């Protein structure tokens, strides 16, 4: 089947209903494997058991950026090809991205309390993730304010593209700001290496989160298509009743 056929919402609904259970099952299995690996992973010599927060925190951080990428690609689909399925994909990804970013921030704060002695420090990374979260909320606010879904999609697409241009600049300027204002006193897990005993569970959890995102995104896209159909039916009904 050529890829273009997927662009038909009815075909998409049919195909996604077939593959969704498989993705859901794979998500559960990989999550179970990941949790088992986490439970058997050793504690960090510096962070103790708190290092286990990393296995939730880091995949959520990766997905918080990945969701904006998905939205950017969908925004191009909306503005260039004017395809309704691209609108639906962007709309479904926005709340997921906001949720993953919130998860990243909350787990980071819980991790920061025992490690830095404060829930929040104005470090470059934290601050740019916070700005990313604000931008997700802005996109969501725009989706909720414009009534007509097609026009809302185009407005949100423009905002998403502007955000995609600006997010690297924001990241750069916030990094510059934080190195200017305070020394780099924050832990750097990235650095040269992570011990393989911690890296394997992390990668498995990243895969689990990716599968979770695909599952939720497909389900949310299906819901959105059906929500639009309900909306159209209600409008037709109202039109018929008014006649």
């Amino acid at each position, binding site marked *: 089947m050529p890829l273009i056929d997927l662009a038909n919402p009815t075909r998409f609904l049919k195909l996604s209903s077939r593959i969704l259970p498989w993705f859901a099952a794979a998500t559960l299995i990989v999550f179970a494997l990941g949790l088992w690996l986490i439970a058997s992973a050793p504690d960090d010599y510096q962070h103790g058991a708190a290092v286990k927060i990393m296995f939730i925190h880091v995949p959520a951080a990766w997905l918080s950026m990945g969701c904006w990428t998905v939205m950017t690609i969908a925004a191009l689909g909306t*503005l260039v090809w004017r395809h309704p399925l691209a609108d639906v994909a962007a709309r479904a990804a926005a709340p997921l991205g906001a949720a993953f970013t919130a998860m990243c921030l909350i787990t980071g704060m819980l991790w920061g309390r025992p490690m830095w002695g404060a829930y929040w420090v104005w470090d470059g990374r934290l601050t740019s993730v916070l*700005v990313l979260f*604000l*931008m997700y*909320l*802005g996109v969501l*606010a*725009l989706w909720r*304010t*414009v009534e007509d879904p097609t*026009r809302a999609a*185009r*407005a949100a*697409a*423009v*905002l998403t*593209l*502007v*955000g995609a*241009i*600006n997010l690297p*600049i*924001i990241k*750069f*300027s*916030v990094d*510059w*700001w934080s190195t*200017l204002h305070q020394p780099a006193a924050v832990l750097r897990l990235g650095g040269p290496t992570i011990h393989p005993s911690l890296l394997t569970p992390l990668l498995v959890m990243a895969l689990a989160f990716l599968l979770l995102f695909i599952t939720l995104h497909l389900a949310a896209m299906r819901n959105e298509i059906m929500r639009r159909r309900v909306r159209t039916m209600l409008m037709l009904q109202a039109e018929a009743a008014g006649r």
Partner: protein
Amino acid sequence: MTALTAMLIRDIRLSVRLGGGALTGVLFFLIVVTLMPFAIGPDLGLLARIGPAILWLGALLASLLALDRLISADYEDGSLDLILTARSPLELALATKALAHWLTTGLPLVIAAPLLGFLLNLDPAATGAVALTLLAGTPALTFIGLIGAALTVALRRGGLLIAVLVLPLTVPVLIFGVAASNAAIVGPVPFGVPFTILCALTLMSAVVGPFAAAAALRHGLE
């Protein structure tokens, strides 16, 4: 080109005449700066230290408040439809509107900043630095705001939404504006480094802003 010049003059005239409210932003700026010492105390040393930040925040908020009139007035009286169908490119027309808007709302803030610097106990060099960074940075705020104004033009209560959409995008301008002011006052970074980045941000937003706003208007109003 004459059409664009005519539009520039028309927009400036409309905003300085009765009902335009060009100087309300300056008044707001003055009030914000007056409120700050009530909140943080009348310590002159502290005020001098955070003075550039107060002036930048005040200018940011003041330029934000004027944004909802940037396009919506033309939308309401129908002249936006003429601009959309006119022969001159929409991007250039919007850039002209943003320029006129900056001349009537942004430039007065830059001129008022040195006077407000006295209230905050800034010495002349610091005041000059803040005014210079505002001169370089406030056009970026207008051009970024243009995107927000174009996205929310057809909405009835768009004012608060503009703030939510635009403020995260202004983070780099605020960072480098305040950093350049502080670099001129206390160092240790040379003034030129953040200041040139601030100019680069302004130039970039002058390109991205009109194109994004034109795309938003074309797709949003049909």
